[in-house]
């Protein structure tokens, strides 16, 4: 479904990604591990088209995400450890906007049930600048319930979550694994990734390697 072909990227002459290639098949849950600054977030931001790459291409179902029309990326949802939401808007307004940007028309009831599922229904009318870090992570998770994604990009999903929040994300991940949905999950914790991913890569110095092969 997704094919990353020799993607390279530098920041101010410093290479961050060096000829990264990767294939994600339908139903794959791919984990990418690496130390801080290894380029994991940059790779996900490039896949989400927030960052541009210097060379290479990214194909989704055979169509280029980089050169294709915007609707090619309609099935890709990026959940970052940054909220990627508007602080002065309420939780409900942010979800309505997200749905609208992905071409979805959601009713207040659908938004409400998404917020309820992540434990935020009490705070739906609060501006999200008043939310704690963990609440923002939960709101990010609520996006996965209103956008019909084919490929989910998760960047350090447990950052800032309390015990309940971590359990919630684990439930979501297990459910998605069971449903055979495709994901790319980035974390520094290989042990944690092994629980939820069928393929694990390690990213170090901008070079992506199959973790099992590199360990072997």
């Amino acid at each position, binding site marked *: 479904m997704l094919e990353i072909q020799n993607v390279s990227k530098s920041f101010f002459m410093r290479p961050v990604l060096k000829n990264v290639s990767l294939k994600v098949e339908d139903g794959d849950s791919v984990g990418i591990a690496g130390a801080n600054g290894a380029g994991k977030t940059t790779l996900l*931001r490039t896949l*989400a*088209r*927030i*960052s*541009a790459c210097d060379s290479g291409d990214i194909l989704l179902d055979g169509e280029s995400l980089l050169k294709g*029309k*915007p*609707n*090619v*990326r*309609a099935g*890709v*949802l*990026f959940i*970052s450890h*940054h*909220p*990627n*939401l*508007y*602080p*002065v*808007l309420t939780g409900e*307004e942010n979800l309505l*906007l*997200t749905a*609208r*940007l*992905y*071409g979805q028309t959601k009713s207040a009831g659908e938004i409400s049930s998404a917020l309820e599922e992540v434990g935020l229904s009490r705070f739906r009318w609060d*501006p*999200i*600048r008043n939310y704690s870090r963990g609440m*923002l992570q939960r709101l990010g998770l609520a996006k996965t319930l209103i956008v019909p994604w084919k490929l989910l990009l998760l960047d350090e999903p447990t950052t800032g979550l309390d015990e309940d929040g971590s359990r919630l994300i684990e439930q979501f991940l297990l459910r998605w694994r069971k449903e055979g949905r495709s994901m790319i999950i980035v974390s520094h914790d290989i042990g944690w990734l092994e629980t939820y991913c069928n393929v694990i890569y390690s990213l170090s110095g901008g070079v992506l390697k199959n973790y099992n092969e590199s360990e072997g």
Partner: protein
Amino acid sequence: MFTALLKKDLLIELRSKEIVISMAAFGVSVILLYSFSFNESPRTFSIFASGLIWMVFLFISVLGLHRSFSLEKEFDAIGLILSAPVDRSLIFLSKWVSGFLFLLIAQIIIVPLFWLFLDLDIPEQIGLWLLIFIMTDLGIAAIGSLVAGITLRARMSEVLLPILLFPLVSPLLIAAVKSTDAILMGLPFEEWKIWAAIIFTFVIAFSVTGVLIFEYVSEE
């Protein structure tokens, strides 16, 4: 999609009231200063009125543009729009229109006070005068949205924005000053139509450029 993006900008401003209030407050303060400075010589003021008012509009537009794009940086909110399946020219168009509206609202507060405090005559060609205002505002908003988009990712965007914006916007403002001057003096349109043509050209050139290149300038 364009309406969703524009509605988002307007809703954010309605909630935060950060952009228009700061623009209007700055504009009114400068007008008060003008009014005290030129108190003794209203004749001198009327000669420089056009230049002085467009100078105020230039500064308030930088203030507004910077704030509008800063709000996109908070919580990395721009990432939501960039990663969504949205044509990026629509992001430019929504920023252009919202920037224009914010500038226009601030001017609706500032201009009557300018005329009142400085005791200027209402121009006879009021329709043309309004048209020049609106066209120049559209030009400033188009250039400003493009430059603000370019500087959005820069670490010192608040410094970079005016450095890049002022030279680009100067010909447009010179044309606006000349046109306003001609209107205040009651000159026939035939005599200053070249300045109006420059304003019109700038609006077209920068709006088309913005639509075409925002895709590339908005990415990291």
